[in-house]
């Protein structure tokens, strides 16, 4: 089963308008999943990760209903069929 990566509206222009990116190849962690996304949509992942591969400060990622902040970060394991959701943090001014 595919892993789904659900995008916020602000990032859909970097995936040709897709709201959800389906990953067919297996991936063990959130980082693996993002690497697969980057192969197709590198500009999208530029906006999620810094050039050092770190999650941007005001971006949250959920696996299912749980934030990876409270799991294992980008090393959080994902199962087949998982849904990864990228969400802008509630921050601003």
């Amino acid at each position: 089963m595919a892993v789904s990566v659900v995008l916020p509206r602000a990032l859909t222009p970097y995936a040709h308008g897709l709201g959800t990116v389906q990953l067919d190849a297996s991936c063990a962690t959130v980082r693996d999943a993002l690497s697969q996304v980057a192969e197709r949509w590198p500009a999208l992942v530029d906006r999620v990760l810094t050039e050092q591969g770190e999650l941007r400060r005001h971006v949250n990622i959920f696996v299912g209903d749980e934030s990876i902040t409270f799991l294992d970060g980008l090393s959080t394991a994902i199962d087949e069929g998982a849904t990864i959701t990228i969400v802008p943090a509630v921050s601003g001014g």
Partner: protein
Amino acid sequence: MNPSTLVLVGTTKGAFVLSSDDAREEWTVDGPHFPGEAVYSMAFDQRAGRSRLLVGVHSNHWGATIRFSDDLGRSWSGPERQAIRFPESSGLSLAQVWQLLPGRAEEPDVVWAGVEPAALFRSDDGGESWAPVQGLLEHEHRPRWMPGGGGLCLHTIVLDPANPDRMAIAISTAGFYRTDDGGATWQPRNAGVRCVFLPDKYPEFGQCVHKVTHHRSRPERLFLQNHWGLYRSDDWGDSWQDIANGVPSDFGFAIQAHPHDPDTVYIIPIQSDEFRVVAGAQLRVYRTRDAGATWGALDAGLPQEHAFESVLRDGLAVDTHRRAGVYFGTRSGKLYASNDDGERWTTLADALPPICCVKTAVLAPT
């Protein structure tokens, strides 16, 4: 109106482009472009037949990018990927683009970017792709540079129009550095610039330089607004002299040379580092016409009481008309303009988002 004059205004919530004719009496306000995103750097590039507006756009969520417009903001393009990227080996990640500066006329495809964390990037294709200047990225002083209130930012780039191997930059808080070999090596040039916030008041580097300006006809003469202290150098920064002669405060951020007279410079004094509003709560631009020997206040048309305003380092600009236009924007979103060298002021906008930068362009005749 046939627009000939542009004022580019970057704010914490987008960019605005104001346009007028040569008289600069009536203005059209266009924007915001990139609503909700911070714009700390803007530039206009008219070299090699371009008419290109460059903008450093920062999303609080999605990071910093460079965007272009070749039609005065009607449409935008630019590299889709994050074009300014630190190499993995540096361990650094781009936080903000603080300065965009088209290069010398003889290098029409060169554009410079000063960024946070403090580094200088160069583009050789008009801003599409960028590479860090390694001599500064790998500078031996880097581990000892300290971030100021705005972060560890490279906010000022000064080019020698005559010598392509010479340029200078300023970093808060690292000080003023100059290269004479095209960027291979950089030497601190801070002799005489005081650090009130360090035990050693005159270190080799570590100064919190807020902005540096000069006139291209006399490039070796530099004017520097420091975190406390107003200075002039007549030797490309080899030495600095205090020129805070008669100003109400020598604290401030913005400093801007006149477009035609190398001895005329504008500043906006700030009360203190602890109370960052204009000195005496009177909104006044100060001008010297004798390279800092004396300063006089310019306040006609500006509020002279209860003006708890502040102007950031890139919030003051001049245009290149014969009778120079002078412009500044405040952190409360007010944009003021003078079309007569600063003698009289009018309000161009009074409720923009907090203003981060003000730049100008006088359009080449088509």
